[in-house]
Every structure is written in structure tokens, then in C-alpha cells.
């Protein structure tokens, strides 16, 4: 269970989160919506351990373990994954070599994969995402289109198999076909192996054509102003965020 409790945070002395509460259970899909600047992406970065944010109050635990004290790499080891809104280009770093390094740090000695076996694993996951195989030989996000970068994030997710994944606006930049592929792949991943819990951050309502979330949260000015089941979406579709202001 990924549990955010009364989380207050700021950046450069500017308050951005005002007591967030959110609980994501294994196997659940939650959608977090809100207008630009409501604090969604800040929450995502704080979850992954970005150093620019100060958490003044509240706790985040992952399966009972304190997340806030851990460095980003430790959080990854604990089973957290953030698909970045703007994945960073790392010039000269081969995607496959990098991902193999990341994969192997999480494996016990005997399960670490040599180059060839890892190539196969990546191919298999790429198929799931209907990814062009040439993408696997590219450098990490270097020169990739917006859509390719987003798919590449999901490929990383598929290979690393986290317990909890946060998708920060993965849907923006993807065309409708790609969106469909990505979310059907995610559903397949949720069924196999670990029962991954997913928090989808978006501000596009079109997402609901592809997923049926267990819970929807509406965020405004650093607070979650409404949480509930799919019914909230209908309310939102009808009158937008105005309803909450």
C-alpha cells in the first residue's frame, strides 16, 4: 500500500501541497486530475524523492516503510516508479545498457541478466507496447519525439516491474492509438506477476475512454478537493473544475 498522509510541502518557500491524503492499494488504478499548477506533478516528484522540495508535515509510506527518508534510488528499490512528464535526454547513454544496469541492481546476484538475455527481455516488453525495435538501440531519450519518450518510459516500467507506478501526464504527447496500446499494455502488466498499483496523473478526460479507475481524485491549489469512484468523472465532464471553486 502506498499511503500519503496529511502531506504538506513547499518549494523555494512557496507552499504547494496543503495536506494531501491518498492511499493506493496493490492492483488499483487511481486517477489524479486537476488544472495546471494544482500541484499534481509536484506530488509526483516528491513521491520519487526530488531534492528541491521541502516536506514540512505528513508522511509517505510504501508497504509500511517510510519513503520520505529514502534517496530516489532506494525508493526505486522499494518498488516505486515514476514515469516522467518530461523524460530527460541523457546524450550518449544507450537505452539498453542503462536499463540493464537499472534492472540488474534490483536483482539478486544469480538473477542478474547478461547482455543477450536482457535483450530478449526488452524485446518481449517492446512487443507488448508495439514499440519499434530500433528504439531499443537508441540513446536514452536522445533525439526521441515526445511520443517516443513517453513510450520509452512505459517500456522502462514494464522492464523494472515496480509495485507502485506514478504516470505523470504520460497521456499527453501520445496519439489516440498509442494511448490505447499503452494502457492495454499496462492492464496486461497489472495482471501478471506483481499486482501493481497505478496512479495516473492527467488533465485530459479522454483517459477514461481507456481505463476504468478504482478511484478518481480532484486536486486544486495543492489540496485534494474531491475523491470518489467513477461518478466524480461524470460530474467533472458536466461542469469541469468550476464545480469545485
Amino acid at each position, binding site marked *: 500500500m502506498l499511503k500519503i498522509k496529511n502531506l504538506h510541502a513547499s518549494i523555494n518557500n512557496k507552499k504547494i501541497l496543503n495536506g494531501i491524503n491518498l492511499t493506493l492499494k496493490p492492483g488499483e488504478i487511481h486517477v489524479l486530475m486537476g488544472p495546471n499548477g494544482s500541484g499534481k506533478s509536484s506530488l509526483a516528484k516528491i513521491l520519487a524523492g526530488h*531534492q528541491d522540495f521541502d516536506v514540512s508535515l505528513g508522511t509517505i509510506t510504501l508497504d509500511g516503510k517510510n519513503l520520505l527518508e529514502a*534517496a*530516489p*534510488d532506494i525508493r526505486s528499490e522499494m518498488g516505486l516508479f515514476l514515469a*516522467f512528464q518530461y523524460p530527460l535526454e541523457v546524450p*550518449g*547513454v544507450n537505452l539498453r545498457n542503462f536499463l540493464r*544496469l*537499472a534492472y540488474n*541492481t534490483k536483482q539478486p546476484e544469480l538473477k542478474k541478466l547478461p547482455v543477450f538475455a536482457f535483450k530478449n527481455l526488452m524485446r518481449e516488453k517492446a512487443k507488448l507496447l508495439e514499440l519499434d525495435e530500433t528504439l531499443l538501440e537508441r540513446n536514452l531519450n536522445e533525439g526521441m519525439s515526445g511520443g517516443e519518450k513517453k513510450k520509452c518510459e512505459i517500456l522502462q516500467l514494464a522492464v523494472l516491474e515496480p509495485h507502485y507506478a506514478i504516470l505523470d501526464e504520460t497521456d499527453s504527447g501520445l496519439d489516440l492509438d498509442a494511448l490505447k496500446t499503452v494502457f492495454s499494455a499496462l492492464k496486461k502488466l497489472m495482471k501478471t506477476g506483481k499486482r501493481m498499483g497505478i496512479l495516473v496523473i492527467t488533465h485530459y478526460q479522454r483517459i477514461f475512454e481507456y481505463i476504468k479507475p478504482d478511484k478518481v481524485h480532484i486536486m486544486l491549489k495543492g489540496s485534494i478537493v474531491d475523491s470518489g469512484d467513477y461518478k466524480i468523472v461524470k460530474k467533472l465532464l458536466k461542469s469541469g473544475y468550476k464545480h469545485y471553486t
Partner: protein
Amino acid sequence: MKNTLQQQKTNSASLIKTEVATAVAINKDYREKYGFKDRIANSTDIGAGINKTTIKKISALKSEDEWMLNKRIQAYHVFENKPMPSWGADLNGIKFDKIHYFVKATQNRARSWDEVPRVIKTTFDKLGIPQAERKFLAGVATQYESEVVYHNLLEKWNKLGIIFSDTDSAYKLYPEIFHQYFGKAIPATDNKFAALNTAVWSGGSFIYVPKGVKVDIPLQAYFRINAQNMGQFERTLIIADEGSQIEYIEGCTAPVYTTDSLHSAVVEIFIKKNARVRYTTLQNWSTNVYNLVTKRALVYENGIMEWVDCNLGSKVTMKYPSVYLLQPGAHGEVLSIALAGKGQHLDAGAKAIHAAPNTSSLIQSKSICKDGGRTSYRGMLKILNGAKGSKSKISCDALILDNKSRTDTYPTNIVNEQNVSLGHEASVSKVNQEQLFYLMSRGLTEAEAASLIVSGFIEPIVKELPMEYAMEMNALIQMTMAGSVG
């Protein structure tokens, strides 16, 4: 093209392996035949300091003729009269009267393994350098065991008419070639250290490749490193005759420990019509060494010169490999990497002179500084009047890993012709915190993430290195980064 090169590299690796497997006892007379051992009798040290008498002694010890002695004496006068260059790195630590200008290196010079600094030993460990090689690199042994393999390759090259030997021996055997080329690319008057080298030079490599001969295995100083190559004042002369092609590699990724404080080499290369030479350097002198080297290639019609220059070690390096594009269609490249750590100042760059129409040059420099280290890019591009249709592309990128370190760029572009194309890009960046965060969020430690970023930064040049060197290079980067982060 890239594939062919890669293929060549793989071929050479497997060929070398085969050579090792088939290496059998070789004739004893190979030594005399090819001169890979020092021919001067007994180990000799003429003492510290330099004057006309010491130069005469050096020449006499080498039983040289008057021609070379005169060159040396003339050069010595130039050396004496030229002021220390004041435009670059701080050279005040060089004490010319404390330097031993001629030490005949034999077993006598070897030090004991116990004297080798621990940091050097640790590096050998981490890089997985074989024991025999370690002792050589640390100056404990003066002979490197792969000589057997080397001699087999040498025989092959010899059949093709290639001459590859140490420069001293070559001068005895082919004085007429020296009269034609020695000092013609880099005259003693070029700079103070070229003059010094000309006055006191010893060792280095001599290569002559006949017309149309192409060699797909890099000729490596690595295989024949003995004290002659690793000397302080080595002199290298390479002549690639029309349509020939070779690659030469000097140095190695592992640190080379020496107590000598000045290394001042001169490398002259002549590339005839349609010939191609690639000269790769991996410099990792221990950090007490002033490394002041002059390297220049004269390139004739449609010839290609490629310098690949990696500088990791030394206290101070000043080195600007040059290409003089003298006839139409000549092409020159200078690709360089500099990694400066604590107490190091690496002032490196390139020089390209376009002196004929339709010549082209590519200069790419990547430098990294950390722990208070300093890198400088210093470049000179000249397009002379009449060099119509010439093209040049220069890019220099610097990466700074912390706030204690420093990098500077000193580019000079002089263009005296209208109809040319010139591109110049420069960038300075710090290791990006967002990139670090991104990589760490995938489970990499901070040191792993940083070393990945650095490896990626130099990748465009590292991929030009033979595979085994590229791997060592990456291992070395990982090692240095592990020590500097967190």
C-alpha cells in the same frame, strides 16, 4: 563506413588472439634485426642539466653522425633563446637544470614494487590490468611480455614493406629518409619544447608505409612498450606513402607511473596523396608529470589524418594536435577528450590550417573537470587565402562536475577566404541535477548515475577507440566517479 571500421576492430582483436595462440619461440636474432631493444651499450645517465656538452655526449652515446648532431646543437640554441610560453598553463614548476635528459633505461632503472604509490596499484586492480603489465607500467619491469605476439605481427608487416621500429635504429638504417622528413613538419624553431625535444630526443617510433599498403591492425606502441617508447623525449616520425593506410596507437588507459617530471615528445606525420592515418593516444601519466607535446600532420591531396587524443593523466598537459591541409581535398580530424582531476590542468585542443582549396577539417573536443581540476580548450583554425570551398566544423563541450573546478575556451579563427564554410559550437555544462534525479529514480546510485552521464558525454569519441580501450576507458570513468560523488 562505420561498420567497416567496427569490423576492422573486431578483426584485429581476433587476429591478435590468434597470434597469441600460435606464438611460438621466435628467432633470437629478431632483436638485432628489428631493433626493439636499446642498442646503446650499458646503462648510462649523463647527469642532470643541459648544455652543449651534454648534447654532444648524448649524440656520441648513440654513435650518431654529424647531421643529427648539428640538428641537436642548432635546436639547443633555439631552446635556449626561446622564452617559456606564458600564454597557457603554469609551467613554473619545470626545473630544466634538475632534469636528466638522457638516461639509458635498462633494468637498472627499475624501481621496486613497494615504491609504487598505492593509488596506482588500486587503479591497476580495478582496471584488471594483468600482473606482468602492471609491473611494466609502474616501471618495475622494463620489458613487456607480449613481445612474442608483437614480433609475429611485425614479421607480417615487414613482408608488406612496412618499416616499424624505434626511431634511433631507424635513423641508422635510413638516414636519407630522415634527411628528407625529420623536422620538416615541426622544425625546432616551432616552439621551445619542440626545440628541446630536437636537442635531446631519444626513442619513439618510426613508421614508413609504402604506396598502396593498407594495414587493418593498429600498429601499437602498447605491444612494444619498453623504456624507449615511454621515454621523456621521444620522437616519432610516420610517413604514409600514396594510397596507404594505417592506424597507430600509443599509450594505454592504465596510469603510467614515472618519477620523471617532464615529458616532451614530438610527433611528425606525413600523409601523401590518398593516404590515411589515424593516430590514437591514451595519455595517463601520473600526476607529477608536465606533458608538453607537439604533434603535427602534413596532409597532401585527398589524404586523411585523424588524431584521437585522450588525456587523463599528468599534472599539466599542453597539446594541440595539428593538421596542415596542404593540397586540394585534404581532410583532417582532431577528436579529443580531457579529464582533469585534483591538481591537474589539461590545456588541450587542436590546430587546423587550410592551405588549399576544398580541404576540410573536423575538430571535436570533450573535456571534464572535477575536484578542482582545470581544463582548457585552445584551438586555432586558419583558412588561408585561396583555400576556396574549404569547410571546417569545430565543437567543444566542457562538463564541470563541481564548483571547485574550472574550464575555459580559447578559440582563434582566422579566415582569409570568402568562399568557405565554418561552424563553431561551444558548450559548458554542469552535471544536470534533473538528469541525476531521473537516473536515480530508476535505481542507480548517485555515483552510478554521474558516471553514466560522463560516459555518455564522451561517448562520441570513445566509440572511435578500439573496443578494449573503450571498455577500459569506461571502467576508469566509473572508478573516478565513484571516488568523487557522495
